[in-house]
């Protein structure tokens, strides 16, 4: 076709031209010959195009006090996705947005930022903020469980029962719960309701391990970036690809290591992002490779043996989960536009996003409880004749569970969310919805 010259119209979106290496020695000459006034002009008059803006962000970000709204948005999306998934169980939701990988990447990024301070203090601070909400949750769950017939004598090993309670204090392994044999709290709950309630706990266990090992991982990342980044992926592939039968390892150890390895690469990717390592790569590298990685993960998922009546769920395949999340998170972090202010179309969500962010742990811990509690509540409506006659479709709908569960979740967060403030040494607030400033329609802080 025609000439491959740079025939742009105007130069609003100029990117500095890269001079070839073997030509770079002439650069001093070039700089000298540009009149001083023009050089100054170039420096002080950056074109306002989006590319220039991007350039600024690509530059190592100075630590800012303000929140990065992009990260807040991701965290809120991840939470919403988790709630939806636990309600509907749609297999495509984790593909659409791999919440767990995103959450761990965000946490890893923040952890790396904090680790500029002495490691011991940072780890202690993280645990201080994580554990109290969990203790509260655990206290309530265990109490209910004991009341419902899941006390120390339920499984015949009272000593073990008491000993394992230590995992509720420090969740290095999954905290104990009554897997079965509960009476249902007179609410017609299933006998394994405790199993459902503690579904979110694995995240806290994994998080704890990541926090504990972060100082080590960060040092490794700085020394051997590529190896460190890929080590968890290699581990999860080795564990699930070559040791499908793993009876030789104690189950508690296996699940802890497996969860750690599944999302370890995401966590470290977040750290690398914070360290500015991703920005140092040529810009084409991540968006070129990440889709290939995701395709590999998707292909692995598709090639798994399927139950004909159900689509394969990525949550059940750690390798697929790890690889897909890794690629997805890499793309998200590559985009990373660092919003100090909301883009106009998203500003309206500021309140919800802020709320979700300041109550993230509570929402996460309690959402399954809310969804489980919604079921017996809805069951009562079957006794109402009108509902039974005309609204059966509503009562059997999954959406209705969500509609009932979300206000319940709000109540639970209202009741127990303050502990997050206490843990963070803030004054406890009931409902941290950002208040509008006087005279302003919306706050975009």
């Amino acid at each position: 076709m025609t000439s491959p010259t740079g025939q742009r119209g105007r130069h609003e979106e100029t990117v500095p031209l890269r001079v070839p290496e073997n030509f770079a020695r002439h650069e001093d000459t070039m700089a000298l010959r540009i009149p001083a006034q023009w050089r100054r002009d170039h420096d002080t008059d950056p074109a306002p195009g989006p590319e220039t803006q991007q350039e600024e962000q690509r530059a190592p970000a100075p630590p800012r006090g303000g929140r990065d709204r992009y990260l807040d948005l991701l965290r809120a999306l991840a939470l919403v996705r988790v709630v939806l998934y636990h309600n509907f169980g749609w297999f495509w939701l984790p593909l659409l947005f791999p919440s767990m990988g995103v959450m761990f990447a965000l946490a890893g990024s923040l952890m790396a930022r904090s680790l500029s301070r002495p490691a011991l203090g940072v780890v202690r601070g993280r645990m201080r903020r994580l554990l109290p909400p969990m203790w509260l949750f655990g206290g309530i769950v265990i109490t209910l469980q004991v009341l419902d017939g899941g006390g120390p004598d339920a499984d015949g090993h009272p000593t073990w029962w008491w000993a394992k309670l230590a995992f509720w204090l420090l969740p290095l392994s999954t905290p104990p719960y009554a897997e079965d044999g509960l009476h249902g709290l007179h609410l017609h709950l299933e006998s394994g309701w405790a199993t459902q309630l503690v579904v979110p706990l694995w995240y806290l266990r994994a998080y704890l391990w990541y926090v504990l090992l972060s100082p080590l991982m960060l040092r490794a990342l700085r020394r051997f970036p590529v190896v460190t980044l890929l080590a968890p992926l290699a581990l999860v592939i080795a564990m699930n690809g070559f040791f499908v039968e793993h009876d030789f390892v104690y189950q508690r150890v296996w699940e802890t290591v497996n969860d750690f390895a599944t999302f370890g690469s995401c966590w470290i990717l977040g750290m690398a992002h914070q360290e500015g390592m991703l920005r140092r790569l040529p810009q084409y590298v991540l968006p070129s490779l990440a889709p290939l990685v995701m395709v590999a993960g998707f292909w692995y998922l598709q090639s798994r043996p399927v139950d004909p009546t159900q689509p394969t769920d990525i949550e059940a395949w750690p390798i697929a989960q790890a690889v897909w999340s890794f690629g997805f998170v890499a793309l998200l972090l590559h985009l990373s536009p660092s919003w100090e202010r909301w883009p106009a179309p998203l500003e309206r969500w500021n309140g919800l996003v802020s709320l979700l962010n300041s109550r993230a742990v509570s929402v996460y811990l309690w959402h399954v409880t809310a969804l489980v509690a919604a079921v017996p509540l809805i069951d009562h409506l079957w006794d109402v004749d009108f509902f039974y006659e005309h609204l059966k479709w509503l009562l059997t709908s999954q959406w209705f569970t969500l509609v009932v569960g979300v206000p319940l979740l709000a109540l639970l967060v209202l009741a127990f969310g303050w502990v997050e403030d206490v843990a963070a040494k803030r004054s406890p607030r009931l409902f941290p919805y950002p208040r509008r400033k006087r005279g302003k329609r919306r706050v975009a802080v």
Partner: protein
Amino acid sequence: MSRHQRRRQSLLRPRRLAAPPLRFFMPLSLLACLLALLVLRGLATNEVFHDTRIAQSVDKTTVPESLLKGGPVIDARGDKKANPVSYRIPDKTVVLSFDDGPSPEWTPKVLKVLAAHGIRADFFVTGSMTTRNPELIRQIVAGGHEIGLHTFTHPDLVYQSHTRISWELAQTQLALAGVAGVHSSLFRPPYSSDASAMDDWNYPVIKYVGAHGYLTAFIDRDTDDWKRPGVAEIVKAAMPTTPGAGELILLHDAGGDRSETVEALEQIIVKLQGEGYRFTTISDALGASSAMVPVHGFQLWAGKGFIWATHVSVVTLPLLVGLLALVGFLNFGRFALMIVLAPVHARRSKRQGAWGPPVTEPVTVLVPAYNERECIANTLNSLAASDYPIEVIVIDDGSTDGTADIVEEMDLPFVRLIRKVNGGKPSALNAGVAAASYDIVVMMDGDTVFEPSTVRELVQPFGDPGIGAVAGNAKVGNRDSLIGAWQHIEYVLGHNLDRRMYDVLNVIPTIPGAVGAFRREALQAVGGMSDDTLAEDTDITMAVLCEGWRIVYAERARAWTEAPASLQQLWSQRYRWSYGSMQAMWKHRRAVVSRGPAGRFGRIGLPLVVLFGVVAPLLAPLVDLFLLYGVLFADTPITLASWGGFILLQSVLSWYAFRLDREKPWHLISLPLQQVVYRQLMYIVLLQSTITAFTGGRLRWQKLRRTGEVSAAPVEV
């Protein structure tokens, strides 16, 4: 080309630029239509959604005992939804049922046998066979036989979702309405046998189908005729276990050689009639009204529309496949040409002194500049470092951002500045050529950076007096971004490898505006640059070729240019290129019938450029179309594997091109993504410019011409 035309264009076509999504509309809707045609045709040939998995039998805990031991017809409709019941065929009654048809080879024979005995039977037809053989369906209906649904694509419904099951049934009804104007309420699941074979997996399907108003008909006697066990075996299998008991017999009239079935059919009829059996249809045997109801109105016309569209698609497909083959031929042909010719060029360019005595005389470098404030200093400084004697003329084409002031301020001894009112790049270049002191003129852009050796390498070929122009090697400078990396790959593979090939054939169609050199004599002979087209560099190159000059490619004359950094800019750049080169090809169309060197270009170069530059990219969407069709509707693994093979081939070729150009191959990791994003963008641009060329091109051309005439005389400062 470039800057000036862009502004003009935006004045001319403000609406199109204001509403970018519109430009995707026509190309994309065209592609969507073609995809729909492919899918329709795939439905008719049972290629789309084809699923050959057959479920293994499992427990029968959920199937009521009464159904397992009951008759072959299951009724789970309406008020029997909760407790389905089954019916038996009455004693001394037999129903013949034929599955999987109709087929053009065997169904007529079956119908003939049935007609000879005056017997009615049941045909469980698939939707895809129905759409392919509408005439047979009409014959079946006309013969008084009963038609039941056997799904559209014949999958094992156990594996399918409710949506899919509903679709299978509805689509088959649509086809039936279209060909015979009837719907049927009789259903038989594929891969089924007698009622005792119901299990926990397929029983829910029966209930689901029943809830939608279908009567499910299993069988009593499976003849296994599709295994071709021999006529005697089939006949034996069709005989009742208890003499006189009513039975529903399964036979097949499609899916392979059914000669045994036809032969056995005759004997079965004779034998059972001898035993006093009555032959009838299922509804009649059960004493119900016919399962077939005529349809009217919308349903009828929707069916007819579907059948008609399917026929169009079946007829169109060979054309599409032919075009796809052409694309494949062109692409592989281009690859082959490149692989053969590029090494020839590479070897030739390694030879020292290939062009005769070294060229040492000074040359003029023309730098047309329009609003190049950011780059012009870099450009001039790179020229200052040149290791070859040059005179630089900067032609400021009425810049409004102080470009000329920067040049003046720099005060370089070897630079002359010409200020003129805005008149377009061709007029700026013509002004520069008029002012040039030397016989060889190098042209570059105001945003391009030369290496110190670029000019020297570029002018060496002029040692050969037959060479009238030289093309340099334009490189993408900003290749670190994704879009830059894509263009980098495209430049190295598409432009530079192409150019080597064209060089060996002596038909280089374009000298890049960023780096090229001309003999002033050659330029003057063709009347200088013209603004007839949006691609004045292609235009002038073709003109010089037609004058009989040779044009060669100097790969070591590298110029670093700044490629568009946003999709928007890239779009408008490529729109101008493709539209401009179409204009240039059209302008030089008479070369095809000319004598001498022009004729040589017209008969070798022009067809190649049209084929590789226009036809192949224009048909390239077909590749994606078939890819999409294959992945979504047909055999996914094979489609993906062949596509992956194509990408691999392209990667190998690109790697070779990178090696020839002494580039590091890292950027090739962007190739897969480039193939699924960038390539599409490029052909949509080309499609758009083609549409423009065919619809409003002429008008615009005249307007452009008029605007070009308003150039004022250059004012030298």
